[in-house]
């Protein structure tokens, strides 16, 4: 990233850079436009990746939507048949679906807010060069590259097991007491939210650190001439300048939080009961524990649709926020 944060989406940048006439290859080739040759060359390079994506993502997407219109239960092969929108109608009356949707919203919302606030706080506190900062920047890479499933299992066993887990022990030391953190429906969702926040606050921290390092110095120089407090400087100069970075973090983390699966699956499996069952986990359980592929496909389609809507919608938000600058 070279410490050069650019809040603009990559696509915009690519378009912008290439727009003024593109690369002058065409001109070099004798002053004539040879757009076809140019395009052919480009497609030749992009072709394999597109073919691959088409084959292994567009085709499954079609198959997914198709399957969601059928009743496919591997335990009842005789019952397979076309049901139209039946699976989707079933979803409307499925209390467990609505519950999992609620858990997803709560989980996503809470973790994104926590990550953003904590990441920003740490980035601001460590904005100046100081001892230990580089070490920290290395250490925070850990949660992002560790195997998520193993992270979930570690939290479930070594950290949160009542009596023997390290965090449970610390909780006893500070007077919170020993609890069945992942076994108590009232605590489990909180525990997996803390775990996800531990995993992904480093992302926000790194993004904000780089953005802070790249802020223009002029507004701060100007503020030195005025009697402003540190709080005013933060509130009226730093935060407004960071707004694009904050929006970016919220957007990216929201979309990625919707993909959360591994760690929560390993830590609780969605339980106890359905206390931590996000939509992902419910779809997985329906399709591969109950072997009800048709209904599972309908749930998964809904999830994909929500993600696509978010991706597009947030792109709009981002464009609007960045426009006035």
């Amino acid at each position, binding site marked *: 990233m070279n410490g050069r944060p650019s809040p603009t989406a990559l696509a915009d940048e690519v378009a912008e850079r290439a727009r003024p006439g593109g690369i002058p290859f065409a001109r070099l080739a004798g002053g004539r436009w040879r757009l076809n040759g140019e395009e052919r060359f480009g497609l030749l390079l992009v072709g394999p*990746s597109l073919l691959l994506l088409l084959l292994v993502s567009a085709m499954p997407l079609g198959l997914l939507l198709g399957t969601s219109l059928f009743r496919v239960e591997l335990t009842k092969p005789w019952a397979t048949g076309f049901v139209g929108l039946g699976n989707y109608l079933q979803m409307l009356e499925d209390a467990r679906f609505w519950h999992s949707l609620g858990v997803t919203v709560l989980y996503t919302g809470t973790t994104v807010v926590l990550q953003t606030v904590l990441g920003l706080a740490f980035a601001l506190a460590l904005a100046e060069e100081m001892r230990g900062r580089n070490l920290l920047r290395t*250490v925070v890479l850990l949660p992002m590259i560790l195997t998520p499933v193993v992270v979930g*299992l570690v939290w479930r066993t070594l950290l949160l097991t009542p009596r023997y887990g*390290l965090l449970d022990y610390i909780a006893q030391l500070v007077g919170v007491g020993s609890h069945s953190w992942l076994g108590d429906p009232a605590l489990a969702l909180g525990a997996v939210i803390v775990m996800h926040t531990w995993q992904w606050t480093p992302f926000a921290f790194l993004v904000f650190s780089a953005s802070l390092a790249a802020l223009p110095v002029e507004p701060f120089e100007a503020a030195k001439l005025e009697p402003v407090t540190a709080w005013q400087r933060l509130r009226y100069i730093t935060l407004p300048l960071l707004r694009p970075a904050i929006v970016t973090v919220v957007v990216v983390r929201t979309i990625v939080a919707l993909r959360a699966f591994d760690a929560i699956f390993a830590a609780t499996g969605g339980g106890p009961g359905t206390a931590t069952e996000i939509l992902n986990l419910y779809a997985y359980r329906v399709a591969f524990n109950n072997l009800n592929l048709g209904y599972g496909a309908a749930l998964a389609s809904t999830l994909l649709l929500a993600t696509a809507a978010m991706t597009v919608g947030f792109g709009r938000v981002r464009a609007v926020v960045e426009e006035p600058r």
Partner: protein
Amino acid sequence: MTVQKRRRAAGAVVRYAAVGLALAVWATPVVWVLMTSLKTRTDIFTIPPKLWFVPTLEHYRASLNTADIPRAIANSALVATVTTLLTLAVSVPAGYAYARVRLPLRDGLLFYTLFTQMAPPVGFLVPFFLLLSRAGMLDTVAGIVVVYLTVTVPFAVWLMTTYFLDVPRELEEAALVDGCTRAGAMTRVVLPQVYGGMAATAVLSFVAAWNEFVYASVLTGARVRLAPVAIFGFLTTEETLWGPFAATGVMIMGPVVLVAFALQRYIVRGLTLGAFR
């Protein structure tokens, strides 16, 4: 002490407290796994937790003596390596093209690539299961590699595009003027500029394939069991083998962590992809 000096001192205290706290929060769980993997069974379950102990390698031996783990690690290494090589083969040319060549529908293609990266894998699980089972490719290396390419190729293309954008355009223009062919300029002049980026892309592709669990849990079975699935074997409801579990966790995550630290400078961009170009 003036007010200003006192304030500055207070600021320093806050900042060092923040560094200390952050280091403790993010390093402790990892250090704890490493320590647990080296403790005897008795030491693991001693309360209060032992910070000083005589280390033992018994859990590593136990883990490597299981039928499952060594094979799973070998399988994971094979799958991740093949995935990485294929990913580079398709994403490097594509990245170059998005960065440099006029393409029809380029923005649409880039967005589609991005969406496939953002889509939750659970969404694709049902169709992949149906396709692979129809093709007889469930529980095969080829089958899971093809599926992993859907995970790695999109972000690899994005990442490589950003690295190619960083290469000064004048370099290849000069090469063209000197009589290089277009492909020659690409391979001999531009490509060497992005070796670092390629290394980062390779590491991140490898890590993604190595760590992947959702697809592995459904699309592979006894034949091509992969490490993230196999490690569950230590934590069944009947017995919980913390020692061997921790040792296996260290063996799975350790090498990746070391490589990532060595290439830290390059991979931060990949890890924060989407936030920066």
